């Protein structure tokens, strides 16, 4: 593996509130190569904020600090707004959870995809349209010509999510951050969308951060997994080894999932240990 795509060291995100400062992310560090990295955790664990802070998308008054936050060796903390705009989209792209709130409702989906291409390449309108149609076909939309002229409300949730992915991939980013890209979708559609992302990662050598609450999905889809709890990474392991995770929090999450191949009825309930919140040596040793 050559130079890492993304280096994150001691990332912190905090929000000032009336009750004092709330820390959403408390010292997260990882490096990412051309791989699929899963970030899992429950709501409020800071997994989405980690993804957003990389692109500088933490809404004010949130504050992001890090010892290092670099994309292909370039420091994102000191990058100008102009430079960040160039990186967003063509360097790092992000797919959000819900296509309903992420697509422009008064613009046809085709024009939105073509626009994403033209912003980063200065291609002609005709060329952009041709590429957008190709991209729609690449995310397996059956009739790209027809879908190109549709408005977001005229397409289904699964198709909307594919359109989002097409839009994010058309400038050919090196890194894709996907924040729960499939959790609003049916299981079969979810599988098809993941297959598209999987192929694109393989073919283009793209890196991916896959933020999700679904442990089984991450275990079967990603290469490596970070498990977050209360703003910290409590465990990191190869995705295939997730089921042998050692941290009590990860174990608790896995055990609380009902399973088809296990007919026990009463599910073990997760008891939270306050020690998980602090930097205890035991947790350090596990990492």
């Amino acid at each position, binding site marked *: 593996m050559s130079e890492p795509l993304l280096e994150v060291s001691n990332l912190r995100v905090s929000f000032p509130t009336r009750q004092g400062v709330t820390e959403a992310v408390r010292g997260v560090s990882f490096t990412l190569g051309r791989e699929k990295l899963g970030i899992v955790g429950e709501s409020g664990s800071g997994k989405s904020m980690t993804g957003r802070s990389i692109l500088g998308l933490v809404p004010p008054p949130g504050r992001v600090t890090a010892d290092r936050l670099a994309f292909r060796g370039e420091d994102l903390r000191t990058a100008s707004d102009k430079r960040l705009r160039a990186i967003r989209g063509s360097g790092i792209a992000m797919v959000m959870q819900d296509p309903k709130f992420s697509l422009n409702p008064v613009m046809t989906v085709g024009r939105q995809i073509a626009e994403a291409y033209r912003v980063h390449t200065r291609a002609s309108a005709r060329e952009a349209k041709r590429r957008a149609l190709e991209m729609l076909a690449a995310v397996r939309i059956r009739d790209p010509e027809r879908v190109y002229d549709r408005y977001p409300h005229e397409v289904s949730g699964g198709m909307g999510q594919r359109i989002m992915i097409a839009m994010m991939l058309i400038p050919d980013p090196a890194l894709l951050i996907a924040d729960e890209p499939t959790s609003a979708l049916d299981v079969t*559609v979810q599988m098809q969308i993941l297959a598209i992302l*999987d192929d694109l990662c393989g073919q283009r050598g793209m890196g991916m951060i896959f933020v999700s*609450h679904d442990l*089984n999905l991450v275990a079967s889809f990603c290469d490596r997994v970070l498990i977050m709890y209360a703003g910290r990474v409590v465990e990191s392991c190869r995705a295939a080894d997730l089921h042998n995770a050692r941290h009590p929090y990860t174990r608790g999450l896995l055990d*609380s*999932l009902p399973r088809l191949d296990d007919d026990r009825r009463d*599910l073990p309930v997760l008891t939270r240990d306050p020690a998980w919140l602090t930097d205890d040596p035991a947790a350090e040793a596990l990492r």
Partner: protein
Amino acid sequence: MNVPPMIGIDSLQVAFGHGAQRMVAVDGVSLRVADGECYGLVGESGSGKSTVLRAVSGLNPDWSGRVSIGGVEQAATRSKGFFKTCQMVFQDPYGSLHPRHSVDRILAEPVAIHGLDDADGRINRALREVGLGPSFRFRYPHQLSGGQRQRVAIARALILEPRVLLLDEPTSALDVSVQAEILNLLRRLRATYGLTMVLVSHNLAVVANLCDRLAVMNRGRLVEELTVEALRRGDARQPYTQQLLRASQGYDRATADSFRDFA
């Protein structure tokens, strides 16, 4: 052996819109749920599973066919007695509780509507039943977590001591650790009160955990009925159910390619 089922549905049909816009959401669904049984309805979005539940609960008066609860044939509009027998818990615990009513007022309302006595005792009992202490009684929904809100919603349904509980994706908005708590709670309540339950969910493992039998729906039709044991064995007869089973077993590149649409 000729005991009438707790819930009987015969050729239920629900359609929305008129003329060219008409869309049949539920097309000739028939099923029976015995007294004390927990029955699962699974399917993907748009399969009509929630629409069946809304027709049974009386939330959607526009349906045709026959629906009987506890042996009593139901008309489009329901009597007060019906709601005493049959209560519902919704998917979104953030949307199903009145944001400006305290837990006390939320729970007192059904008691007042049905003219029951001892509201105070009932509210305390219902809260204890769902694992919330009396300290939660005067809180507002925004002071509760998602799991606690869903417990309040379950308490509101239970306070009338119903015989049938209709559950529409009761855990899909919750974290997995909270989901486990709610599933355990529902199972305990069912055992204690002999409740009959219908659970709508897209998650096969959740249905398998709580139910005895289930029906798989696709595009408004009932594809097949099977027992949870058969589901666990992977013993589905219909290709649609088999596809659903494969999809719920995690990501696999080859499996994704094998998927097709079922009309």
